[in-house]
């Protein structure tokens, strides 16, 4: 494990985020839980970009929010630069937040439409007592805007006056102005047009090179994550199923889910598209209120075996040189000793049709 490494900026140990499902007229009875994040351990080194991929409902956004304590984790430890973040209270936590900032998916809904860019940027500085010197503040704002490629005249403008790409730049500037160490970016480019995506991705890379930032990038687009991340973690139904360096993961995905995910991504090249083999997954993502026993992927896995898969939850273990996989049969699949087979489609309810109750359910905010 990487736990003993000293250069880790942030480390998560067995993080769990469970949302209670309440029901009842007078007294809110808890009738079940949505196991949004269920035991994730990972560490991100200083200056590294960690990419978290997975489909909607896999818990990647909740994990990002849990890391910043925007939702309170149910269990587990968050060690940020040597301090246990979950033990911090009130003022101490607020102070610590300066060093961890977030960029959101949709810049239009995450920027207050009635605040000018200047006021948006100054707000954070004031909250941390960094806006006392007017001249210095002004210099800082201009410098930040320049870093994200916006003119100084943008200060007096409002979010609706910008195009989507520029608005995302304002969102990045807001995170950047506090000079943070860690930036959590939740789907930073998925709301943007393709031609604009490249601009924002390049900007994120430049900023990292200039300022030595550490990123946690959460995205559903594998090609984007592969491009920007050094290490990639793949999530499925609340747990990490595979983690490896970006190159290793894409060269040789070892978990059956990762393989299926990668084979499903369309490549803009007809020559590749015509001859590639797709691993089509049967059915939908099971409900996180009632996750399958054992390996959570065994209900859809084309390589699932009659033994172990349904009973025993596989641990994320080091298979080859830092390539961690949560699969009992990773080696056998890689060597071709196990062949894929047909999977019977199981019906999945969008809320929960399998449990004894059909609760309205608390929504997990995922893109």
């Amino acid at each position, binding site marked *: 494990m990487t736990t003993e490494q000293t250069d880790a900026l942030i480390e998560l140990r067995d993080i769990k985020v469970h949302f209670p499902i309440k029901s009842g007229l007078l007294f809110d009875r808890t009738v079940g839980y949505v196991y949004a994040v269920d035991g994730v351990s990972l560490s991100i080194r200083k200056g590294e970009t960690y990419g978290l991929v997975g489909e909607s409902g896999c818990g990647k956004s909740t994990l990002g929010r849990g890391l910043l304590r925007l939702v309170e984790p149910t269990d587990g430890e968050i060690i940020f630069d040597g301090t246990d973040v979950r033990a911090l209270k009130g003022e101490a936590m607020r102070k610590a937040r300066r060093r961890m900032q977030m960029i959101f998916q949709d810049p239009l809904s995450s920027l207050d439409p009635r605040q000018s860019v200047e006021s948006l940027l100054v707000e954070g500085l004031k909250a941390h007592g960094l806006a006392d010197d007017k001249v210095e503040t002004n210099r800082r704002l201009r410098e930040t805007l320049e870093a994200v490629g916006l003119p100084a005249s943008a200060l007096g403008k409002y979010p609706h006056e910008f*195009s989507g790409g520029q608005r995302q730049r304002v969102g990045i500037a807001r995170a950047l102005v506090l000079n943070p160490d860690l930036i959590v970016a939740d789907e930073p480019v998925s709301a943007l047009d*393709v031609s604009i995506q*490249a601009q924002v991705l390049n900007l994120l890379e430049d900023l990292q090179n200039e300022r030595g930032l550490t990123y946690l990038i959460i995205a559903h687009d*594998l090609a984007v994550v592969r491009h920007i991340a050094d290490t990639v973690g793949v999530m499925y139904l609340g747990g990490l199923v595979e983690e490896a360096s970006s190159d290793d993961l894409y060269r040789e995905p070892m978990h059956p889910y990762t393989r299926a995910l*990668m084979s499903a991504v369309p490549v*803009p090249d007809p020559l*590749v598209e015509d001859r590639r083999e797709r691993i089509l997954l049967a059915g939908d993502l099971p409900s996180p209120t009632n996750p399958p026993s054992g390996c959570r992927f065994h209900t859809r896995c084309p390589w699932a075996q009659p033994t172990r898969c349904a009973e025993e939850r596989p641990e994320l273990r080091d298979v080859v040189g830092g390539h961690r996989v949560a699969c009992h049969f990773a080696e056998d699949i890689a060597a071709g000793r196990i062949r894929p087979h047909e999977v019977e489609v199981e019906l999945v309810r969008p809320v929960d049709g399998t449990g004894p109750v059909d609760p309205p359910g608390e929504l997990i905010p995922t893109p």
Partner: protein
Amino acid sequence: MSLLDVRDLSVVFQRRGERPFTAVDKVSFTVEPGQTVGLVGESGCGKSVTSLAIMGLLPKRGNKVTGEVLFEGTDLLKLRPDDMRDRRGREISMIFQDPLSSLNPVIPIGVQVAEVLERHQGRDRKQALRESRDLLDAVGIPDPGRRLSEYPHQISGGMRQRALIAIALACKPRLLIADEPTTALDVTIQAQILTLLKQLVDETGTALVMITHDLGVVAGLCDTVNVLYGGKVVERAPRHELFAHARHPYTHGLLNSVPRLDSPRGERLHAIRGSVSDNIPWVEGCAFAPRCDNVVDACLEGPPPLEPTATGGDLRCNNPVSEEVAAR
């Protein structure tokens, strides 16, 4: 005769007190029977408005549609609303992006499929429901008998999109227009739906117009690709030709700016500079000129014409990307 022949289709939105906005500007393309044609572009390029205009689904007021939409020789734009309604869903049908908002939330799935058969093929409810069961089965919905009486919120997003496809294909239309059918879905579900569409189109011989912003989707599916920018077709080519030698700077830039799973890592992305808001109106020159690296003086003097290329496509550009660069 082509199955669908769109000639000089223009859609102008007019609001009182505002300058008219040309969303679609003299777009022409044809679809042959059984062919799959792609319309590709970013938001605001007019791809969805084109499809709505073909289907006659634009609002009655506030816009002006000109040009011709010939479906087997009949101009759909000149049809009476009743006649158009007879064809819609029977000869031409459409799949939309968001299946939850295009299905009626208070009517069971089965009835929504059966409705089409009752309206167009004169089936009674009982027989229509029986046929609906087979249709749901054909699009890969498990246990279709039970799904008939369920409501859209009870099934998952991928299943809803399958139900929508079942409705669209119920009357075996000759033309299917799919407007971003997989954009709201996850990649693994997207792969399921695309495979299903491809298979159904092959089996039934339905022609497909695929509208999408995702070049990857087009690469695997479409025979011919039309690239739209600012309401005009800027490049048209057979898919192998387009992806191997994109001649228009916009297409070329678009292909270079997307990170790919199979390209070498660590290279900087070649972003197209600026954004759609920098566009100039087509009457003043090429709308893409302010963002273009290949811009020459002629680009700002008037709209360049759409001219046939040596490789069987069409191109609207004064200074296209050279063959060597395009081939990469």
